[in-house]
Every structure is written in C-alpha cells, then in structure tokens.
C-alpha cells in the first residue's frame, strides 16, 4: 500500500450537511454540555484562579497584608536565582529518565516479543513497577535498595568487596533517575511491545528471504516502524516525568541539583506558604512546558522522521 493510495481515501459524512436537523444538533450539544462544563470547571477555572493569585501579594503567614502587586511575584520568581537551576534539573532528570527507559524498555520489548513458556507471567511481572505508587516506589528504593546498612545494592558491593556507595548523598541525581527509569521502563516497554506485535510478519520474512541479517532487519525495518510508538512513548513519558515529585521529596529533598520545578513549587507553596509567589512559579512552569512541548519535541521528532524515511 503506497502513501498516495492512503491519501485518496475520503471520509464521507453519513447524512448530507444540508439535511442535518438543527434541533437534533442542539439536543446533541445539550447532552454534551455537562461534560464540557465539568471539563471547564476542572481545568480552566483553576488556571484562571492561579493567574489571579499570581498577581496578589499573599503570604499565609501575614494574613492582614494582602493586596494586588501586579508583576512583583513574577519579578521575584525570575530574579531569585532559583528558577534557572530548577529548569536545568527538570530537563536533565526528564531527559535521562526518558532516554534510559526507552532504551531499556526497547530491549525488554524485543525479548518479550518472542514465544516462550510463561511469557504472560513474565510480562505481568515486568509491568509491576509501573503499577506501584510513585511514593511507595521511592520508599522501596530508599530503604531496600540504596540504604547503606540494609540496602541490597550496598549488600552486593560489600559482598564483592567494593566500597559502600551512599547514593542520595554522593549521587543524588543518579538516584532519582534510577528510580524513575525503573518506574517508566515498563511503560515504554508496553507501548513498544504493542508496536512490535503490530508489525507485519510477512515483511520480516521477506527481508529474511532477501538475505538481511537480524541487525539490518532491526535498523531498517523494525525501527522505522516503531518510530511512531517511540514518539508517543517519549511524549507521554516526558509529560509525566516533567511533573515528578515523589522521588525527590523522599530521596534528596531537592539537594545536589535535583530541585525540579515541581519540587520548587511545592517548597514555595507549602514551606514558604507564599501563595502569590507559588502561583507565579506555577504560571511560569506552564509557559515553559508549552514552549518545550511545541518547539523542542517538534524538532526532536523531525529528526526521527528524517531517520525513518531514509
């Protein structure tokens, strides 16, 4: 099937546009209304309220000192020197976690794509980390893996006569990335596995007949086919990890370059108790996320597309 053939397919409306009953249209819209109102109440109103808050001088600890301050909160957010390191931390943690979980997830997806006994059990076990609550996952890692006295990792290094590693103190960012990668690898694996299983086996056989080796088949046929799935995985993973909070709060408390935007926001709101400033940080975060989502991801995917059509 060529691309041109696909383009030629045209979807026709079931009823002719002129014959659509206006009344029916409005009743249909009326039925949709509760859902739309619900959606607006849930997403748009809080955002508008946040914008209003961000223009107020409002510290919970000084209840009598409230008022409109215009852009002062934004000024202090942009000049305090907290924002830039926090952006760097967010970008690094997100990028490392997403890249690692895509790579490892790909490996597992390929392994799970073959037939073997107990495949269903293996697949279920592999998915478990994604089903664990983020806070619980961080606690598991903090105590049973990273801990210097009772952690498995340090038990291993002791058994191998290697020096004990104090993870959260010496490698704070790596610890956070490890936990996130552990959590999101199954997510990537599931998406990529769906992609692999949707691959036409006939094409693979044809490639084999033509004498292509495993590596060539993978890089020239499977990988371009998976492009869309990788894109979806990266996009969803990045959006979720951008707002990650639990491992930072539990493992590092924002030290050692792990203070992400989400954690910074939490600190301003719940430790500084400064509603106005926290709201300003929130608005800045949303704007930055939109910029990243539109510009950076698009360029990133162009690279993928170029790779796919070679």
């Amino acid at each position: 099937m060529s691309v041109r053939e696909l383009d030629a397919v045209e979807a026709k409306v079931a009823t002719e546009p002129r014959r659509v009953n206006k009344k029916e249209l409005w009743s249909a819209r009326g039925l949709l209304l509760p859902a739309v109102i619900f959606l607006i109440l849930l997403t748009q109103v809080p955002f508008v309220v946040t914008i209003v808050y961000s223009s107020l001088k409002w510290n919970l600890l000084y209840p009598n000192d409230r008022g409109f301050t215009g852009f002062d909160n934004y000024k202090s957010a942009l000049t305090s020197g907290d924002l830039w390191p926090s952006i760097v931390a967010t970008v690094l943690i997100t990028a490392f976690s997403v890249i690692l979980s895509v790579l490892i997830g790909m490996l597992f997806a390929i392994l799970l794509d073959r037939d073997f006994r107990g495949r269903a059990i293996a697949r279920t076990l592999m998915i478990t980390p994604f089903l664990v609550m983020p806070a619980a996952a961080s606690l598991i890692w903090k105590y049973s893996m990273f801990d210097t006295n009772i952690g498995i990792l340090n038990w291993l290094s002791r058994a191998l006569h290697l020096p004990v590693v104090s993870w959260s103190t010496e490698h704070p960012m790596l610890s956070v990335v490890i936990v996130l990668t552990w959590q999101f690898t199954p997510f990537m694996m599931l998406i990529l596995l769906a992609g692999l299983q949707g691959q036409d086996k006939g094409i693979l056989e044809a490639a084999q007949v033509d004498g292509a080796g495993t590596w060539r088949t993978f890089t020239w046929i499977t990988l371009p086919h998976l492009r869309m799935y990788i894109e979806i995985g990266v996009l969803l993973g990045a959006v979720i990890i951008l707002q990650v909070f639990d491992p930072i709060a539990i493992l590092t408390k924002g030290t050692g370059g792990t203070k992400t935007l989400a954690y910074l926001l939490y600190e301003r709101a719940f430790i500084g108790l400064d509603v106005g400033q926290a709201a300003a940080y929130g608005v800045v975060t949303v704007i930055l996320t939109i910029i990243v989502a539109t510009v950076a991801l698009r360029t990133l995917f162009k690279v993928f597309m170029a790779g796919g059509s070679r």
Partner: protein
Amino acid sequence: MLSSKRALTFGAGALASALALAACSSGNVSTDSGSGGAAGGKVTLNLATVNNGQMKDMEKLKTEYEKANPGTTVNFQVMEEGDLRAAVTADVASGAGQYDVVTIGAYETPQWGANGWLVDLTPDLKSDSSYDVDDILPPVRDVNTYDGKLFAVPFYGESSILMYNKDLLSKAGVTLSENPTWQQVADAAKKVNSADTSGICMRGKPGWGDLFAPLTTVVQTFGGNWYDDKWNATVNTPEWKQAVTFYKTMLDQSGEKDPVSYSFNECLTALKEGKAAMWADASVAASMLEADDSPVKGKMGYAHMPVEKTKQSGWLWSWNLAIPSSTKNKDAALKFVKWATSKDYIKLVGQKIGWSNVPPGSRTSTYEIPEYKEAAAAYAPITLDVMSSVNPKQPGVNPQGWVGIQYVSIPEFQDVGNQCAQLVADYIAGRGSVDDALAKCQTLAQAAGDKHKS
C-alpha cells in the same frame, strides 16, 4: 455505530454530572458537621492534630471524654506535620473557624498569639486550682507564653539528649560522662567507628526540622546564633563556620555513610540494629529504644546533650493544644483542652494504654507517678533533668530577641531554615564550600530579619 456513540456520550455526560453532584453533596455533609455544633445542647468539637503516637492514643481515649460529657462529640482530623501546619495556618489565619481545637508546635504559639489568632488561656487555667497550671514544666510554659499570656498548653514536650550503646562503647574502651562536650563525643565516635558500625548517627536530611534541629543547638553551644538581639543575621560568623565544619568532620570521620538520607527515623533504625553507637536527638527516642520490641532494650546509656561553650545544649519542643479565636464553641473546647492536658488524663493513658505510652515532658507531676517511674526508669530522670534546666530565653552565649531553642519564632524561619539546610547539606555531601553555603544563608536570613527590625 452512530447510536452506540451517542449512548456513550450520554453516559459520559451523565457520569460527569453524577460526579459533580456527588462532590457537592459530600461538601454539604462536611459543612453540616462543622457548623451544627453551636445549636442546642449537642456540641461537635473539630480537632486538628498531628499523626504522632501520643495523639493517636488521645483519639482512642476520646470516648472516655464523650462518656463523661454527654452531648459532646470530638471529631479528630489527624494529619502529617507539614499538612497540619498548612491546613491549620490557612484556617486560623483566614478566621474560617473550621477547627475548635488545634495542635500547634512551640514554634507557632508565640507568633499566633501575637497575631491575635488564639484564645488567651491564662485566666481560665489560673482560676482552676485542680488544673494546677504551675505544674507544667517552666521552660515549656515559657515557650508557649507571649506577652505574659499563655496561649497554648503542652500535650507533650521533648528535649534532646545523647543516647549511646553501652556494649559498643565499652568494647572500644570508651566511657562518657553525664555531661560530655562535643569534642569528647567526636573523639569517642572516632574510636568506636568501624567498618560496619558508625560511631555516631546525626541528622543530615535537609529541612528546618530535620538537619537544623540538632545543628542549631550545636551552633548555639559553639557561640553562634541565627540573629543577634537586634535581628541582624549572624550566619556568616566564625562560630557558625566552626560549628558546621565540626558537624561535617564528625560525620565524615565517624558518622553514618549516607547522611543526606538520615533523619530521626533512619537513625532510630540504625541504633536499634546496632549499626550506630551514639545518637544525639529528641529525648522521646529513648522510649522507643527501650520499647519491648527493641533489640537494644536495656543496653542504652543516656547523657545530656553535648556542649561546648554553654552549660546546656538540649533543645525544647512541645506539641500543644490551643483554641483559635474563630471557634464558635469556646467553652466546650476549653473543657476538652483542660481534660487532655490534665494530670488525670496522664493517669488515664497509663491505666488504659500503658505507662510507657504516657505523654512525657509536659508536667512535673508525671515524673512522680510511681508506675511511670518504674516503666521509664532508664530515661525519665534525665529527661526531666534536661527539660527543666534548658533556658529557652537564652540558649546560646549571647542574648536573642525571641524565646525558643533550635528555631527562630518568626514566620519566615521555616523557609529560611529549609533553604539553608539544603545549602549545608550540599556542603556535607562535599558539593560546595562552607563559606559559600553560609554566605548564601546569611543573605536569606538577613532578608527575613529585616522585616522584624523595629
């Protein structure tokens, strides 16, 4: 196909409106229970409290109070410390009146009292001779008093002490006096330290209530403090540098391996497992180390918090019950507060729950109850001794402009303390210099102090 799609849309719409209705109705229920108290003889008291063991015991015993006071229901809302602080501050500051009794720390009492958010309890408690307000430990009374008025009464109080594993210390041939200095403790820790047992465990987790609880007391006994008596920040002083460097050196040489992950609970586990030999922390930890399920029960020794230039270096903290001025049930709330902090309540806990679970550090008379003396023989005397000898009006070498040890009772302190703790934690982890951390911290502290200069 088309009809099934429509059914789906309709279903989604119906579900959405059902959810919205559910949300509304549950909202109504909770406001009902909140405001229904004032009318008639029936009173509902809403109490916000922290999820500590002693507070949960109080929740178990509330039926006793409800039995003795028919018509009164006490509604407990138990929260994590951080959530409690945010929820109660928001409610009390805005005068919403959702809570009739709130649990607040010694850090909040003077500030909230000054803001006029709390009911002054002095006249009611003074006039009630059976309550015996003078029985409350004097330093704890001091930290909860502002302008001569008692705004909150302690439910339990704690100081900090040095706890050590006698077996591990004697194996290394180390002895400690009842009043050690920090230098002696650091030397002892170095001798005890081995490959799988650290000499000492100290909090290193960033946070004003984590790392800075013990570190502030170390700074104060080394002669430093957060502010002088005119609200000039004094963080970039040689005393601070000496204290913070000492803390890091001690941790490097003989502390736990991963200090940034360690706070109260982690050190408690390390001590129980015999993975650490010494620990300077909250006195309430002693009751956990001496609990029946603790492997080190009976093996522990206790001493005063180590000192350097001052005579005492223990901190002072208490969780207190207070009544917001916005309450509509002041009389009922007062009656409950009196009950929960009375001598009889302490005996009730002893009889119903167990003598080792008695809330410590609030009343002198607690330490005279024979059953409690027996149950807490290992640590009760030293706790009482430390708690009545610390001086919250001037814990350090120089006079200070606020009452309190280990914290500064200004609203900005939790924010300043938290950010400084992150800077110091970076220094402890070897990612920055001490001068750098303290210089940045000085700027933060000065910005906060400037608001209080008068």
